[in-house]
C-alpha cells in the first residue's frame, strides 16, 4: 500500500468515525454526553485536517504550486511592522518565511493573540504553541519575507 492509499484509508476511517459521532449526537439528550461527543468530533476534525495536509504533501502539492500559498509580494521585516492592525492597517504575521493575513481571524482580536502583536515574524512563537497543527492552512497568505 503506497502513501496515497494509506492516507485515503485513514481519511475514510476518520469520516466514518465522525458520522458515527454525529449519529450519537442526534440521540443523546444528556448535555454532558453531548459535550464529550462534541469534543470527540473536534478531535476528529483536527485529525482530518492533518490527514488532508499529509495527503497534499504526499501528492507533492508544494507551496509553489498552490496559488494561495504562492503570494507574490515580498516584505522586509521593517515593512511587515506597519501591518500591526493599528490606525486602520491590516494585521499580518510571518511564519516560516510566509506572511499571513490575520486581520479577521477570530483568535486575533484587536490584532493581538495571547500577548503577541501582529506586524512581526512569529516563527518561534508559532512553533512553541502550534507545532504539528494545521492552523496555518486556514490563514490567507499575502506574501513572503525577503531573504
Amino acid at each position, binding site marked *: 500500500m503506497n502513501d496515497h492509499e494509506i492516507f485515503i484509508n485513514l481519511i475514510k476511517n476518520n469520516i466514518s468515525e465522525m458520522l458515527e459521532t454525529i449519529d450519537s449526537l442526534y440521540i443523546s*439528550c*444528556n*448535555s*454532558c454526553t*453531548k*459535550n*464529550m461527543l*462534541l*469534543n470527540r468530533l473536534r478531535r476528529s476534525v483536527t485529525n482530518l485536517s492533518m490527514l488532508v495536509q499529509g495527503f497534499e504533501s504526499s501528492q507533492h502539492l508544494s507551496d509553489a504550486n498552490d496559488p494561495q500559498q504562492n503570494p507574490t509580494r515580498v516584505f522586509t521585516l521593517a515593512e511587515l511592522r506597519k501591518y500591526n*492592525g*493599528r*490606525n*486602520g*492597517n*491590516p*494585521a499580518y504575521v510571518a511564519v516560516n518565511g510566509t506572511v499571513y493575513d490575520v*486581520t*479577521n481571524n*477570530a*483568535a486575533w*482580536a*484587536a*490584532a*493581538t*493573540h*495571547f*500577548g503577541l502583536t501582529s506586524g512581526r515574524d512569529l516563527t518561534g512563537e508559532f512553533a512553541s504553541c502550534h507545532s504539528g497543527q494545521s492552523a496555518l492552512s486556514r490563514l490567507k497568505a499575502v506574501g513572503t519575507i525577503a531573504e
Partner: protein
Amino acid sequence: MSDINNNCKNIKIRLETASVLVNNAIEAINQNKIKKGNLIWLELTGCSGNIISLLDGSDPSFKKLATKMVNFIYDNSLMAAEGELAMDKLFGAIGSDFILAVEGAISTKDNGLYNVIGRWRGQPVTALDAIKALGEKASYVIAVGTCASSGGMSAARPNPAACVPVHSLLNRKVIRLPGCPCHPDWFLGTLGYILQFGEPALDGDNRPLMFYSTLIHNICPRRPFFNQGIFASQLGEETCMFRLGCRGPVTRVDCPIRQWNNHVNWPIGNNTPCIGCAMFGFPDKMEPFVSYDITR
C-alpha cells in the same frame, strides 16, 4: 435569559446541569446512598472573589452546599472558629477523607512568606505550607478560579511574590475551574458530580467538559455579526466586539448560556468585550482588554 433562548433545549438542559447534580447528590445523601463530603476551602494568594461568588449562587445555592451536601470544615472567611482553633480544624482534617477547594495562587518567594494564612502552634503558616500539607492528602483537589488554576491576577507581571498555580506544586491531578471569579454553578456542579460519581470527564487541561467544552465565540448571541463582518468600532454598539479586543474566540466556557448573578447577564450582554478571564494566560496574555486603535 431571552425568550429566544428559552426555546433551545440544549441551553435549557445546560442551565439545569449544576442544580440537577447538586439536588441528586443531596437526595442520595438523604437516602444514605452516599456520604456527605468533607470540604476544606483554602483562600490563598488572591482576592477571595471566588468565595464571594459562591455565596452568590442561587440554584444551587451556598446554603444547600453548607447544610445538606458537605461538612464545611474550614474556610477562613466563613467559619465561626478563629485563630489556633481554626487552624486545629484545618490540620485536624489530615488523615480523614476530604475534598480540597483552593482559591488563589500560591506565593512561593522567600518560602511563601508573602502570604501567611494563620498561625499554628506558635508558627506562621504560609499558603505554601498549607498546600503542601493538605494538597497531597485530599481525595480531590479543585482549583477554584483563575489564580488557583493558572496563576491569574496574582501571577501577573511582574509577579513580585512569585505566585504559581496549584497544580504546579502538587504531584497529582488537580481539577481546574478557571474564571475570575469561578461561577458558583461550575464549582457546585463539579462537587455534586464528584460526590456521586467521582471524577467528571475532563479536557486536556483538566477542566470539566460539562462546563468548559464550548468556545464563547461559538455560542455568542452576537456571532451572526462576526460572520457578516459587522464590527463595533466603540463600546456601546450592539454588534461584534472582535475588533475592540473581545477574547470570546479563545475562551472556552459557557458564560453566554449560564450568565451571572442568578443568570441575569454577562459581559457581552452588557456591551463590554469578553476579557478572557476564564482562559489560561489571563490577564497578561488577554490584553488589551479594549483597544480603539484598530484595523479597518
